């Protein structure tokens, strides 16, 4: 038993009308990696905000004991002074500034009146080395990938003399390789004596790095599991998170006949809209039948989203060549409207950025892609619009007091359902779902899977893009594997394993 570095005792935090945290207890030992898991809205982020002083002392009940003393943080800098540094899910870097500038943002090197640039960059380089980055600290943030940006965030935290590092969903925007590298880096830091708290939805990562796991459910801590005393499986963690056993993470689909080919893409090549010589999608051939779920697996940056968006009315890319056949007929879709009219739907991976209008109610979002369905001669029939929204709310079991609720107030899973409702209302035959379960909790994921099953049961085709291997394998009838713009493999779901899919990608990389 190591020394207790941090103890959060009976923390209760209430927002007007909601008890976000109810008597939460958390003990973190020095030098361990402590995972905090729970469904969306369970209170993990709130707890970390209490710890880091974003919610100041006095706005919550209970005590934070850090290094043996009771802490009363008023603001983030108070906790950072003690060595508690939090790295948030959304990267907080300024793209137009260099790595070095970002690293010491608000913590500038030099005198009060003038920044010492030499010191800034030489120190920055030192910390970059510690996280295994070989880039110069003078490189601009926008010129490095997300994976490296995440490492810069960590280096930035190290520069603040972090003793307790809190990582909130550090791998949510990373691909498999970068994620693994990051987790290995965490294990490396642990050897050097760093204490870390990691918040993540990805349970395989938890199993990989964590020494202890604390499960949060509905604002209270349910249990703390010690990974060294008992063998922890993902199913065991899920049981704690949802309070029941999910025997099957992927609902079975039975009796669905795969019919005629609904969509076929041949020799599809897309160039980058800005860098004209860069091929983003390279000679892709694919098809999807009625009643079929086709998975496209690939790492981030493989060109999956670009492929999908270029098919969907050329909404991405330049110089697109290749043929697209819908129900056997060759079509040219010049814009999203033509794609929608051809009964194609693209459900974006970025629901907040380009999927939903967060400041508008569910009703408005549901009808947005098919206003013709709720209007006559350009005049909206608000009654009909309301009925449609309610119908889809009930059908997809969206949890909300009313369809007049702004979408921004919903949880991730419910937002995803509204997004699905919007596209289902366009009456598509082919749905391209791009990361349909990103950032949503286990329970909501299951419901999304059920919706997908219902869609194919009614004869629709689903193309599901995902970077979660178990999901691709569990949900698809057939899987395409994509790497660096090319399709490097195709396999039936029953032949697919995590190992042979990854092998496909590794082999294609070596072939270059």
């Amino acid at each position: 038993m190591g020394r207790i570095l941090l103890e959060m005792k009976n923390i209760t935090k209430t927002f007007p009308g909601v008890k976000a945290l109810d008597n939460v207890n958390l003990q973190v030992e020095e030098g361990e990696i402590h995972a905090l898991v729970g469904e969306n809205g369970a209170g993990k982020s709130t707890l970390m905000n209490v710890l880091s002083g974003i919610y100041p002392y006095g706005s919550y009940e209970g005590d934070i004991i850090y290094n043996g003393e009771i802490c009363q943080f008023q603001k983030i800098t108070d906790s950072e002074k003690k060595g508690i540094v939090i790295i948030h899910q959304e990267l907080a870097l300024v793209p137009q500034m260099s790595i070095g500038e970002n690293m010491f943002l608000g913590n500038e090197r030099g005198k009060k009146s003038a920044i010492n640039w030499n010191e800034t960059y030489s120190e920055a380089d030192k910390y970059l080395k510690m996280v295994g980055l070989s880039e110069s600290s003078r490189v601009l943030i926008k010129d490095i990938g997300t994976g490296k940006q995440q490492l810069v965030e960590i280096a930035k935290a190290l520069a603040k003399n972090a003793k307790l590092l809190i990582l909130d969903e550090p791998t949510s925007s990373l691909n498999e390789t970068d994620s693994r590298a990051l987790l290995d880096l965490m294990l490396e830091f642990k050897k050097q004596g760093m204490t870390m708290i990691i918040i993540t939805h990805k349970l395989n990562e938890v199993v990989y790095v964590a020494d202890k796991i604390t499960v949060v459910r509905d604002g209270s801590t349910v249990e703390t599991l010690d990974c060294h005393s008992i063998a922890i499986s993902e199913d065991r963690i899920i049981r704690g998170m949802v309070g029941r056993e999910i025997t099957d993470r992927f609902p079975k689909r039975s009796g669905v006949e795969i019919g005629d080919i609904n969509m076929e893409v041949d020799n599809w090549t897309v160039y980058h809209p800005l860098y004209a010589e860069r091929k983003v999608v390279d000679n892709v051939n694919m098809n999807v039948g009625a009643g079929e779920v086709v998975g496209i697996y690939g790492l981030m940056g493989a060109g999956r989203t670009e492929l999908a968006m270029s098919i969907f009315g050329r909404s991405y890319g330049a110089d697109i060549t290749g043929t697209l056949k819908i129900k056997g007929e060759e079509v040219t879709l010049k814009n999203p409207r033509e794609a929608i009219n051809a009964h194609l739907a693209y459900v974006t991976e970025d629901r907040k950025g380009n999927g939903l209008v967060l400041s508008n109610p569910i009703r408005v979002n549901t009808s947005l892609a098919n206003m013709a369905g709720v209007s006559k001669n350009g005049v909206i029939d608000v009654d009909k619009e309301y009925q449609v929204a309610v119908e889809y709310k009930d059908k997809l079991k969206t949890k909300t007091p009313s369809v007049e609720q702004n979408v921004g107030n919903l949880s991730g899973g419910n937002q995803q359902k509204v997004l699905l409702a919007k596209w289902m209302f366009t009456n598509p035959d082919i749905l391209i779902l791009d990361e349909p379960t990103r950032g949503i909790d286990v329970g909501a994921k299951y419901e999304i899977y059920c919706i997908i099953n219902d869609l194919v049961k009614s004869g629709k085709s689903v193309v599901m893009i995902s970077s979660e291997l178990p999901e691709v394998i569990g949900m698809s009838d057939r899987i395409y594997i994509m790497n660096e713009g090319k399709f490097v493999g195709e396999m039936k779901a029953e032949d697919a394993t995590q190992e042979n899919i990854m092998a496909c990608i590794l082999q294609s990389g070596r072939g270059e």
Partner: protein
Amino acid sequence: MAKFLETLKKYAMLIILVLVYIFFVVMTKGMMFSPLNFNALITQNAYVFILATGMLMCMLTGGNIDLSCGSFVCLMGAIGGILMVVKELPAGTSIFIMLLIGVAYGCLLGFLVAYVNIPPWIATLAGYLAFRGLGTALLSANSKTGSIAPFPQTFLSLFSGKIFETKINELNIVCMAVGVVASIIVVAVNFLNRANRVKKGYEADSMISVIIKSVLSVAVIMLFAYKLAMAGGIPTVLVWVVAIVLIYSFITSKTTLGRYFYTIGGNKEATRLSGVDTKKIMFFAYLNMAVLTVITSYIVIARFQAANAQAGTNYEMDAIAACVVGGVSAYGGSGSVFGMVVGATLIGVINLGMQLMNVDADWQKIVKGIVLLGAVVFDILAAKKNANK
């Protein structure tokens, strides 16, 4: 009680307007309440209502503004003067030519903003500078005084004066009749709406609140009708303003076109991927703005009965202020024609009230600045409070 507070919040700006109005009535010893000042409130501010309607449509698409509209009013005045006074073309032809020029400018501006992706404030800053210069140059080239007059009577009577004008302090029957008809329509719409909602089982306001709303609306309409009737009749510009406000209320609240303005302001990319031609909407916003600016120029020429170089100075700022005070988001995506009307009226009331109190012109600007800032702070705090709930 909670519901009462909610209603209070919903109509906060309206309540503030009433309070400010009463304040000025008291401070001016009732002068503000006189028929002539009712008339002045409308004729002085007609340009704000029309320009702010166009500005609202631009702002909805994402906080975009048009800085050129004030200068464009000046240029159109100069062109109108040349057409009607110097060239002596008929009013109808001149009106049509001016409208065409407006459409041409609107297309150019819309093209630059929507298709070339020039930030609106820069694209319109160019017009702000150039049109004032061009307008002034045209005026001084065609007139020694730098002001062109007199405009033909047919033109003036279309955009200024009164309908069936009677003597002051003599009740204008037409005006009263219009007031009564408007009242009946408003009450009918209120009750029919409620009945319709109840029939279909939707959430509807209680009968009492509908009655209160109707009584208050009728009171306001009849008060205006009576005061205007005593001031000589319905000002012609009021017809233009009411028509434009009603048309745009309908567009923004009931049509798919109007809906797209809001969703583009809320999330442009999501709207584009939903199959909406977002560029076309942006284009339309600026074309529409130019057309409304031309209409504004008609009423401004008619009001001053002359075209001069100062016409339209700071009109763009008045329009933006009216929108912002009326709760139109500076980031786009929210705001309503009704809110804008309340905002424009509030600024109009403050302007007129301070003039009547003989407040120094510099102080008038200071007060307006504070009101503008206050309105925005109030809006943001209210939004925050809502979000925390």
